[in-house]
């Protein structure tokens, strides 16, 4: 785990080339720096002041580097430990609790920085008895949990675009309505391959439009061939996926002919009703009622899924979590190890998932509506890159890149 500290240097550090030397010393040691602030003296006699955040490979490397930096006048900025307060009610954080972001966060405890294991926005920070720091949503706080209060002893690493050429550098703007889609698809495919090589999981968050646009078979194939490791969706996506496989329609419209089927508006209700008779999607697959599609592939491949419920849901399917707090917890449970999230034509589930994701998860939001991407970013998921296009075409292209060229 890398270690980092802010150092401060004051004096005629520009004219004496002390600042330049400090930067060179840091880089030469294999560590890295980020300039936190520079206050340059206005006149020849005014002193200048600079703060650098120094990041080294580990605590030992940092400690020896700090000794060297001190010889050139750069001293560690005095930091205080975070203040902790025990929660005194179930599901209630102490007043003044530190409210988290989804950015990499560290807490200072006993003079050392402890990284938060699971960054998530809008949570409290609980220090476990063994000294680890974890984000905990409000409802999960238990009496006696030691919760960070105030802002002292908290360090948040601001988001930064990586320097240098990355496969996605050409996407300098966050939304891509005017970018060649073929290139975007190829690049997302390349990122997925890269992440799979490194062992990271791919999360797909699907809206019903994935089925309506005819992209479900491509998603199903990606699940079957191991390109999707976790699926989040709602009742609608699962119901229409099953409907299209059992009845050949999605919301009553033939997925092959594109025409409305006689009495088709009730098709999804009949399908939901039958799955409820079996007791679960897995049981319906087992019995042979469902013999294809995304949900079928998830069950047979053992890919875990969370179907989160809402007031609008018909049925719902027996696998749907009707309790949103339970649904969010089930989603959190599946997040460790996820390196990429594909948000596919889903506004509400995308935002819900974004709320739970650490900022380090590479997130692609594919939607025909640019506003969805904006909404996601406005709610704090700044890492999301938006691809404004028809989800059906995008997923088809992605599936071809991954599953044909393999």
């Amino acid at each position, binding site marked *: 785990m890398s270690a980092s500290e802010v150092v401060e240097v004051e*004096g005629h550090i520009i004219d*004496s080339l002390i600042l330049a030397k400090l930067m060179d010393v840091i880089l030469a040691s294999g560590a890295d720096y980020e300039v936190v602030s520079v206050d340059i003296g206005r006149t020849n006699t005014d002193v200048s002041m600079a703060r650098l955040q120094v990041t080294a490979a580990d605590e030992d490397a940092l400690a020896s580097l700090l000794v060297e930096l001190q010889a050139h*006048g750069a001293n560690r900025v005095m930091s205080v430990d975070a203040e902790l307060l025990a929660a005194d009610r179930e599901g209630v954080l102490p007043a003044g609790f530190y409210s988290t972001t989804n950015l990499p966060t560290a807490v200072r405890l006993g003079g050392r920085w402890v990284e938060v294991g699971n960054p998530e926005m809008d949570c409290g920070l609980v220090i476990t008895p063994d000294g680890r720091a974890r984000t905990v949503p409000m409802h999960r706080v238990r009496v006696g949990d030691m919760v960070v209060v105030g802002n002292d002893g908290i360090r948040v690493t601001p988001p930064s675009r990586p320097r240098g050429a990355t496969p996605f550098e050409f996407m300098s703007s966050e939304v891509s309505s005017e970018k060649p889609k073929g290139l975007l698809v190829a690049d997302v495919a390349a990122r997925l391959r890269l992440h799979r090589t490194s062992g990271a999981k791919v999360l797909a968050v699907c809206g019903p439009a994935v089925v309506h646009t005819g992209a479900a078979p491509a998603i199903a194939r990606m699940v079957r061939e191991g390109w999707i490791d976790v699926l989040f969706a709602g009742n609608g996506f699962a119901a229409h996926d099953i409907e299209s496989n059992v009845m050949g329609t999605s919301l009553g419209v033939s997925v092959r002919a594109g025409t409305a089927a006689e009495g088709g508006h009730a098709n999804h209700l009949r399908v939901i009703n039958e799955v409820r008779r079996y007791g679960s999607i897995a049981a319906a697959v087992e019995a042979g009622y469902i013999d294809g599609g995304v949900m079928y592939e998830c069950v047979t491949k053992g890919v875990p899924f969370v179907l989160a419920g809402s007031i609008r849901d018909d049925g719902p399917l027996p696998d749907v979590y009707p309790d949103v707090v339970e649904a969010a917890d089930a989603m959190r449970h599946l997040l460790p190890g996820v390196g990429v999230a594909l948000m596919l034509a889903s506004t509400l589930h995308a935002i819900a998932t974004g709320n739970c994701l650490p900022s380090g998860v590479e997130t692609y939001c594919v939607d025909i509506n640019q506003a969805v991407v904006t909404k996601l970013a406005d709610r704090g998921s700044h890492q999301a890159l938006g691809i404004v296009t028809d989800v059906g075409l995008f997923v088809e292209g992605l599936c071809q890149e991954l599953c044909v060229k393999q």
Partner: protein
Amino acid sequence: MCPPEHFGVLYEINSWMHTEVRVDLDLARSQWDGLCAGLTASGATIELLDPVEGLPDLVFTANAGVVNGTQYVPARFRHPERQREVSHDVAWFEARGYTVDELPGVASHEGAGDALPFAGVLLSGYRSRSDVATHAALSAITGVAVRSVELVEPRLYHLDLTFCPLDDRRAIIAPLGWDRYGCRVVEALVPEPLVLDDDDALAFCANSVVVGSTIHMPSCPSAVGRQLEAWGFDVVVHDVGEFLKAGGACRCLTLALDVELGVTG
């Protein structure tokens, strides 16, 4: 200056000092008298600090502190062996009505041995004896900009072994003593440097005293002498061999009192 009554190599705090090397006190005294006479002859007035038994390095008054008009900033020595000098230095300046301004904190700074004025700024050495942390404070106390230079050659452990201001444009410099950043800082500061090669630097050529247009040097290779004469300086070479045994030469034996920091021309 401080007469070498109690001078000797009684401890080793630099790479020149070897306690087994004996100092000839009579010879030291006559060398010191010679330097005194030479400085006086070229127009300087000498004031004396009483020698103290047990403080052999008190003769090296350059390290007593930084003088700025009637302001005196006492040194804070790195080695305990020299720390007991400070009270004697402070008493001398207090008795003469100087304002004594102490450096804050505990970091060390060894006076004019590590801080020499040039062109309106104070060039100050650090790492071997002085801490760079004192430089901002020194600037705040004296009101003059400081340029910090890291001293990287252990044999040239004070700035005054590497740098000798001659006038507003010229200085004798020994780049051997500095890291590449220090070299660039001095390069930017001194329009016309007289660059010493490594041998001349280690012969302490830069540890010289300038009085008017006369330069009192512990040694002067002919090439250096020719350049100084071409610039209009008279060179006087003093044998200070006994003091070299303790790692000091002409400049180390003196502390200039006619210093107004930040004033050029």
